[in-house]
């Protein structure tokens, strides 16, 4: 059962990588968060750990409903053009994504030398999600893409933490979620400010501070 | 007490004999040029004439212009006192040695150059600039000669090489180099022309152009003495005759005559050079002095090799 979920997580990340417009990207993110929620539920159910349930619920509330809703609202409020402004066209980014998968698979194999196969697989996917997040931030012009890139990397981390080492201490998880939510809020505010000052949210044009 | 006596004797000797030497050289030059020329004692007549004439001093001149003749005269005479003329070691030899003599001449030249600039005429400036240029190039050549002599005889004190010593190749080459240097120092023809008043060629004359009357006489006398000092040095290095030591004063006068013969020989050589060679351009003088410097180096090498 975990294998299927892992596969869906992988698929959702590929979806995001080839997304050309913002709503598609946010939908991809929402789908990925949902898969993670499902994964944590299964983990919580199999290990009968109460705190995992709370984390799963928190994950769902935050990452599946609240944050995507907040992002949609910002897009509508600032009426920015919705395409992401790609540096690298979707086909090439797909090839990059596959390269990253292979790269993270080698890295995971070298790292977890004596772990079982499923463990290496999970770690590989987690590393891939982090690399994909980074790739999104580096290759998309729009500010929102960078926010989502950050969130995707954070998802990858959460997945690595919960599956590989049974999750961080409960209190730390809560603090991290709270922090992530805070940073998304603050970045949203800044997106509004950029839009008001620069009348566009294309981060690539922000290059007045040189040298 | 007889040290002071000997010093005054040497002083008198230089003051009286020096003009005669210069007269002799002009006489030989004129004879070679198949001309009657002035008498041998003409320099004495000039000095007496100058002493009796009144003096004209330029308006812009300062105390340096008036004091320069005395400094030139005293410095040249001090250098003269260092030379062992009558006895083995000159009475004032503890005062300095060959190196000190170079610097003493520099003192005289320094003041003369300043006096030349003091009058404000362009002749004086030109003369002092050329004089300082030539003298600054003479110094390395002179120093190399002294170095050769000190290598040969062990120290730069003049009395060391006034004793009997075998004629060696290095001392001959050193003497030749010294001869070329003395031409430059005493402003003989290839470097500078004494008799002419043509602005472009004169060096020493240009500096003393503004002088007249008694200061000019003093400067003339100083230049004669300087010439004699150089000839004595050359003679001492080339013709090594052991001068009598301090005790037997009686022999002093007999040896003095042999000494004058050597001086006359050198002055003939000097006259010959003056007649044979034409005056060089100022910047060619640098090569002339470099040649003297190379001769000095050769003398050193011979001294090192021990020839």
């Amino acid at each position: 059962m975990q294998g299927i979920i892992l596969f869906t997580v992988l698929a959702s990340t590929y979806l995001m990588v080839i997304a050309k417009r913002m709503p598609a990207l946010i939908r991809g993110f929402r789908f990925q968060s949902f898969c993670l929620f499902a994964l944590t539920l299964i983990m919580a159910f199999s290990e009968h750990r109460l705190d995992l349930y709370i984390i799963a619920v928190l994950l769902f509330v935050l990452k599946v409903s609240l944050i995507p809703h907040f992002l949609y609202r910002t897009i509508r409020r600032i009426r920015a053009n919705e395409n992401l402004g790609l540096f690298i066209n979707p086909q090439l980014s797909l090839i990059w994504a596959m390269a990253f998968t292979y790269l993270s698979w080698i890295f995971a194999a070298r790292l977890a030398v004596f772990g079982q196969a499923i463990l290496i697989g999970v770690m590989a996917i987690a590393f891939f999600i982090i690399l994909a997040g980074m790739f999104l931030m580096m290759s998309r012009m729009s500010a929102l893409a960078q926010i989502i890139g950050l969130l995707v990397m954070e998802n990858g981390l959460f997945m690595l933490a919960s599956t590989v080492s049974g999750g961080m201490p409960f209190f730390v998880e809560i603090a991290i979620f709270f922090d992530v939510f805070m940073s998304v809020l603050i970045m949203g505010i800044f997106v509004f400010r950029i839009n008001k000052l620069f009348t566009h949210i294309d981060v690539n044009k922000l290059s007045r501070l040189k040298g | 007490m007889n040290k002071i006596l000997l010093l005054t004797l040497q002083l008198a000797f230089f003051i009286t004999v020096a003009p005669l030497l210069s007269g002799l050289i002009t006489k030989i030059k004129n004879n070679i040029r198949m001309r009657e020329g002035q008498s041998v004692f003409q320099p004495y007549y000039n000095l007496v004439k100058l002493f009796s004439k009144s003096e004209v001093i330029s308006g812009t001149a300062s105390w340096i212009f008036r004091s320069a003749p005395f400094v030139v005269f005293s410095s040249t005479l001090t250098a003269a006192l260092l030379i062992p003329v009558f006895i083995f070691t000159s009475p004032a030899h503890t005062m300095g040695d060959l190196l000190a003599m170079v610097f003493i001449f520099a003192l005289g030249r320094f003041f003369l150059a300043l006096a030349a600039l003091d009058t404000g005429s362009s002749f004086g400036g030109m003369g002092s600039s050329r004089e300082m240029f030539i003298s600054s190039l003479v110094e390395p050549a002179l120093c190399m000669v002294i170095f050769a002599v000190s290598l040969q005889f062990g120290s730069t004190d003049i009395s060391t090489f006034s004793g009997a010593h075998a004629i060696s190749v290095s001392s001959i080459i050193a003497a030749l180099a010294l001869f070329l240097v003395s031409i430059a120092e005493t402003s003989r023809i290839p470097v500078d022309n004494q008799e002419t008043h043509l602005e472009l060629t004169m060096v020493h004359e240009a500096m003393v152009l503004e002088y007249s009357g008694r200061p000019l006489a003093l400067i003339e006398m100083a230049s004669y003495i300087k010439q004699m000092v150089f000839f004595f040095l050359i003679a001492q290095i080339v013709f090594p005759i052991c001068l009598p030591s301090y005790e037997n004063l009686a022999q002093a006068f007999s040896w003095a005559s042999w000494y004058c013969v050597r001086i006359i020989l050198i002055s003939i050589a000097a006259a010959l050079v003056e007649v044979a060679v034409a005056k060089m351009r100022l910047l060619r003088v640098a090569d002339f002095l470099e040649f003297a410097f190379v001769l000095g180096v050769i003398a050193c090498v011979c001294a090192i090799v021990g020839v």
Partner: protein
Amino acid sequence: MQISLILGIPALLSIGALFLGKRKIFGIVNCIGYLTVLCCAIGLFIEMILSNSAKVFRSFIYLDLLSAYFILVISVVAFAASIYSIGYIKKDIANKAISENKARFYYCLFDLFCFSMFLVPAVNNLGILWVAIEMTTLISAFLVGFYNSKESVEAAWKYIIICSVGIIFALLGTILLVYALSISGLSKSLNWSDIVPVAHLLDKNILKVAFIFILVGYGTKAGLAPMHTWLPDAHSQAVAPISALLSGVLLKTAIYAILRFGIIVIKGVGFAYFGNLMILLGMLSLAISCGFILVQKDLKRLLAYHSIEHVGIISIGFGIGGALGIGGALLHIFNHAVTKSLMFFGAGNVVNKYQTHNMHIIRGVLRAMPFTGFMLLMGAFALAGMAPFSIFISEILIICSAFLKGSYLVAFLLLGFIAIIFGAVVHHFSKILFGNAPKGMSVEKEPLSGKLAFLFLSFPICALWIALLFTNKDLTWIIQKLFQA
């Protein structure tokens, strides 16, 4: 007991700032608050030195000598910044740069920022350490983007994005550490005090990878070379007292985090690995900052690049190791924090008066503002490492340890870069300070609070003898305690 005061006061002040009416009164209250924090920090530090045992409260707060030292450094700069910000905010309001209630908002953010910075050295759990550093980033983002001009918003955006990316990598490193712990079957608690005794049992390979992510992650926050790109923009656009806090102390908290993990890695993998990595990044940041300082036109960016240079020297100091190296680096942290904040205060005054950052326009500061001019001159020479000032001593210690260790290449490169940067600093600051002031520039008196801040800071800079005393007597003893090496 002191730690609760140290953490409590800023929190209270930040809440107070929102509701309290008069700004002028709150400024003074703020200073008094931070004065008490400074006294508590000094008390804590002395207590730590005497009773050489670490204090742990409910396994959440962990205080040993290293964290007490960093808290002391933070409190010194925070106190100076609070004094300076009274005068600075009054002038800003006078020039209509910010409105009245924005000033109140400024004080609240200022106190929150200090609270989060005090939290970092105090915390035991590495996860919470990460959260605290993330909090400092978020809060200071607003302070960087305070003036709401195009440049400051751009700087704030870059600051948030790059630092968040960096910190996420740091979190990845922490998670790998947890993974290493879980593999070797030990308790998964992230408390630093529990991990250190057991560090040598962990898997070497994973520890190495974890430390790389930690180094790059927290290195971004510390401004080490390849990840330093946000630093010049953020520090040049922030409000003057805040940029003093940013470059004086925030970088040091990130270095503190690297040190915490460094101790674990030293125990686990050995010193050579930690040392080489630190020297490599330190040397790289020294080289890059040296290039930028030479051709810099903007005054505040020049100071920002200077922070990168000094962070590089600190990391080289830690990389070289040995009693002298680590002692020198620790001393350098204090010296740099103090000198850099003095320079940023001076730069703040100058920029306020000349209304420009461009160094080609600023002329004759000594004539126009005699007090600030003199302080800038002294600070510039202190920063460049001239003799009578304390940075010279810490640099000498680091160079000395490099020679002792025998790594001549590092020592000669260090000396070369310091000499070039000295030349650049003197070149720039002599152009600004000397010469006569531009026409129509009235010589006006600086506010008393500004002067107090400068005097308070200039004392430690010249406190060369204290540095000598400190290094002489109990240097190795402190190092032993810190690193249990």
